[in-house]
């Protein structure tokens, strides 16, 4: 065996010409093996080497989180870290804690650097700090990556301000770490389990009045008239009924009618009692079928496969998806005085939120104070600040402090969605002959997707307005620029597939969209992983062995080898069950996943076991990493198997979790193993979004292997049949128990 395939102190790498049995034998024979880290080198195949990726993948070198890190860097010295006389470091974190554990991880990094126990670090949520400019956006799995290089300087500066010399003796060898790399409970865990953690709607802002809305019969429809305002105003507890004004500085203010009342219960009753005549929105008449037809038409023809090759062609559809965080869209805004406003909300981009609300209220940016409240999930949704816009307008109009909460049904229908999309793929494969094993000559993937709203820019007004010229037009040159930039700096391929390209063709439909955890990556990479299995089948190769042969980077191979061993890849499965495998890289993290799927009823597939290996560079908090992996698994089960939005006449039909069936306890596998690869000195990589794609690909591939059906249209499982809440209405208050 070639020396390259032997790790310095580990077991042997799997033989290069693996078939499934060979790999299984290897996996079984080397249980620990799986310590086979950094095995590295390309398999020394006796056959043709994979064709190098052409052009080389620039995402390896520069990605969207690099761009966020770069733009954030100049203002890092303005981030507030203070060392008190009590020896406590107080970090005013200019990011949104939305449940991904960044507050805990950053506190651990500060504690390690400062040489103090974690109990000596406190983290608060920074208000919008306009002087930070581009350095207060939470997205792109960038937070830990952006802060890692600056933690030493922040600690040094905090010590200097406290009259202390720079820290000394900070360990650089992971083996010496006292805080980093240890499983650590979240800082707010005790507050959460005792009910003390306060979300936006839990805040006791003096004078804040519960407010709910009725929203139009179509997405971004209009209010033509409110026909019974006096009657509704006379209802118990009702304080105000107001049409939400049109307009908007960066993005449009969501239309609807707001009701303020003594309690949310009374506001909801009053909303239900409103008689409103609705006008059409820009999506009038559009349904899933018409949208998918337009998306198909938006994709230019793929290049023909060269003579002598086999073309593997496929088309995939992903329905729109809603983020559906448990905490619905909400905000508190006090715009009761003419010369100032104050905001409380979970915001991923608080600076631009405050700046744009200032413009909408006719205030200076300095007259708006924005408090960032840790949120009950976000998943990209809170990159925009729609509820803040609404609450600001209602507060200004009524002279009351507005405590706005969307109904769940409007949180699904009238917020923002992951764009529906069509993917078309053509892989050109040189078939195997008696002498040669076959290879992949080219891989084309073209994506038609409803345009992604990216007018939040880098979280401040300049880049936002740059994306929003002309104002209030959904698709602009600026937005297209951001969209293509995000795509080209996020989506890449782990494989040597010769001439390989992924292209995004945004369709300028005026549908409210926003980034959704991992943005374009999860659908694009899931599709590629499905095709990888189909190519492997054409070449007569085991899916895992094929991947090991064609993966470009050693760390990607290492996670696959690790997971194949731990999951006993290739073991016999009962009829109707199958394993599936997939590999992924994103934000400098590498992951590989093997799932087991029960597909005895192909319309009700269940994931029964997941093994996921992840290399995040330096693991800061293994417990938090495992949590994010669990989240990625739940997300993958939901998007691949379980749910998607049904759009009919410009309106999603689903209004709650019994219709939009995101995974519940019974859907989550009872056997889940997350393997966090050890710290080998690589810098910390992205985490928040990176663990969706490998499970998603593995589930789809297991489905194909178990059922013999090609996974093409997501979600794969049968969808619930339900009677939709009528357009423009809220569900009735259910029969009380």
């Amino acid at each position: 065996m070639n020396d390259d395939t032997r790790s310095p102190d580990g077991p042997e790498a799997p033989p290069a010409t693996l078939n499934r049995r060979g790999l299984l034998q290897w996996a079984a024979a080397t249980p620990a093996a799986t310590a086979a880290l950094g095995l590295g080198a390309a398999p020394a195949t006796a056959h043709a080497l994979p064709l190098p990726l052409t052009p080389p993948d620039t995402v390896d070198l520069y990605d969207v989180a690099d761009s966020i890190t770069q733009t954030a860097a100049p203002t890092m010295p303005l981030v507030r870290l203070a060392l008190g006389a009590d020896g406590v470091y107080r970090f005013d974190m200019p990011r949104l804690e939305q449940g991904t554990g960044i507050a805990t991880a950053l506190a651990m990094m500060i504690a390690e650097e400062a040489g103090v126990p974690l109990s000596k670090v406190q983290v608060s949520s920074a208000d919008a700090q306009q002087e930070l400019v581009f350095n207060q956006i939470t997205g792109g799995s960038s937070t830990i990556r952006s802060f890692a290089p600056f933690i030493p300087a922040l600690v040094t500066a905090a010590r200097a301000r406290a009259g202390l010399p720079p820290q000394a003796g900070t360990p650089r060898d992971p083996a010496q770490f006292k805080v980093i790399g240890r499983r650590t409970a979240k800082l707010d865990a005790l507050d959460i389990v005792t009910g003390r953690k306060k979300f936006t709607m839990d805040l006791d802002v003096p004078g804040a009045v519960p407010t709910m809305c009725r929203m139009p019969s179509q997405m971004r429809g209009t209010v033509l008239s409110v026909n019974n305002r006096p009657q509704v105003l006379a209802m118990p507890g009702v304080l105000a009924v107001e049409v939400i004004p049109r307009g908007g500085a960066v993005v449009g203010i969501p239309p609807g009618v707001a009701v303020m009342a003594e309690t949310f219960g009374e506001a909801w009753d009053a909303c239900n009692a409103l008689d409103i005549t609705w006008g059409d929105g820009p999506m009038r008449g559009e349904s899933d079928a018409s949208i998918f037809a337009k998306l198909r038409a938006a994709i230019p023809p793929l290049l023909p496969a060269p003579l002598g090759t086999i073309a593997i062609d496929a088309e995939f559809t992903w329905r729109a998806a809603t983020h559906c965080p448990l905490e619905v869209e909400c905000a508190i805004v006090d715009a009761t005085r003419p010369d100032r406003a104050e905001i409380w909300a979970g915001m991923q981009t608080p600076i631009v939120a405050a700046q744009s609300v200032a413009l909408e209220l006719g205030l200076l940016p300095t007259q708006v104070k924005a408090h960032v409240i840790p949120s009950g999930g976000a998943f990209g949704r809170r990159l925009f600040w729609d509820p803040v816009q609404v609450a600001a307008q209602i507060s200004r109009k009524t002279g009351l402090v507005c405590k706005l909460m969307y109904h769940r049904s409007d949180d699904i229908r009238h917020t923002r969605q992951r764009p529906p999309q069509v993917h078309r793929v053509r892989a050109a494969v040189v078939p195997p002959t008696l002498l040669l094993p076959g290879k992949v000559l080219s891989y084309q993937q073209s994506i038609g997707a409803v345009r992604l709203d990216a007018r939040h820019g880098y979280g401040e007004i300049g880049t936002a307005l740059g994306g929003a010229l002309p104002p209030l037009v959904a698709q602009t040159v600026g937005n297209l620029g951001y969209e293509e930039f995000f795509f080209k700096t996020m989506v890449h391929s782990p494989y040597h597939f010769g001439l390989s390209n992924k292209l995004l063709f945004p369709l300028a439909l005026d549908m409210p969209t926003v980034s959704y955890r991992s943005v374009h990556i999860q659908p694009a990479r899931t599709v590629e992983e499905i095709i990888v299995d189909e190519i492997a089948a054409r070449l007569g190769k085991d899916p895992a062995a094929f991947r090991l042969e064609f993966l470009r980077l050693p760390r990607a191979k290492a996670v696959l080898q690790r997971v194949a061993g731990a999951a006993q890849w290739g073991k016999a499965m009962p009829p109707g069950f199958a394993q599936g495998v997939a590999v992924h890289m994103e934000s400098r993290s590498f992951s590989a996943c093997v799932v087991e799927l029960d597909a005895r009823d192909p319309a009700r597939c269940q994931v029964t076991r997941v093994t996921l290996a992840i290399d995040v560079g330096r693991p800061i908090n293994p417990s938090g990493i495992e949590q994010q992996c669990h989240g990625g698994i739940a997300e993958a089960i939901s998007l691949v198997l379980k749910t998607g939005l049904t759009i009919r006449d410009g309106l999603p039909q689903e209004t709650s979790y019994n219709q939009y069936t995101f995974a519940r306890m019974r859907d989550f596998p009872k056997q889940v193993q997350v393997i966090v690869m050890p710290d080998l000195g690589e810098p910390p990589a992205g985490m928040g979004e990176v663990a969706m794609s490998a499970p998603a690909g593995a589930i789809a591939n297991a489905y194909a292997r178990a059922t013999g059906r090609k996974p093409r249209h997501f979600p794969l499982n049968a969808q619930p049949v339900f009677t939709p809440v009528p357009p423009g209405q809220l569900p009735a208050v259910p029969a009380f128990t």
Partner: protein
Amino acid sequence: MPTQQFNVNGQAVSVEAPSEMALLWVLRDKLGITGPKYGCGVNVCKACTCLVNGRAVQTCVTKVSSVAGKQVTTIEGLAANGQLHPVQQAWLEMDVPQCGFCQPGQIMAAVDLLKRTRNPSDADIDAIENMCRCGTYGRIRAAIRRAASLMA
């Protein structure tokens, strides 16, 4: 407006509220008890789960008048005398929460389950319908098992 009288977390309360109002809004908007969360309002997400006379109820679909004279326990009242409930203890040991929004309801559902059965089966746990968007289900399952052993 009628006066509603019941007991919350060991305290007698008397509050002016329409009899038809959901207990959730009385707790949150009139009494300032914010542990129970709104997530759907239609008994689907279960984030509002509390205990009434020791049994789990969804307060978004419970008329306030129906709890007259009864004992309501919210997440805030679960730790008796400053001592964490074994379910809370297990939640901390397993580091269950991510964003935390659904967790009060999840914990109350688990407390209820462990009252009904000391050794819940996988099927019993699968029957918990509380929604978690962050994907904490695996750790919730482990924490319920841990709590069961703490309570044994």
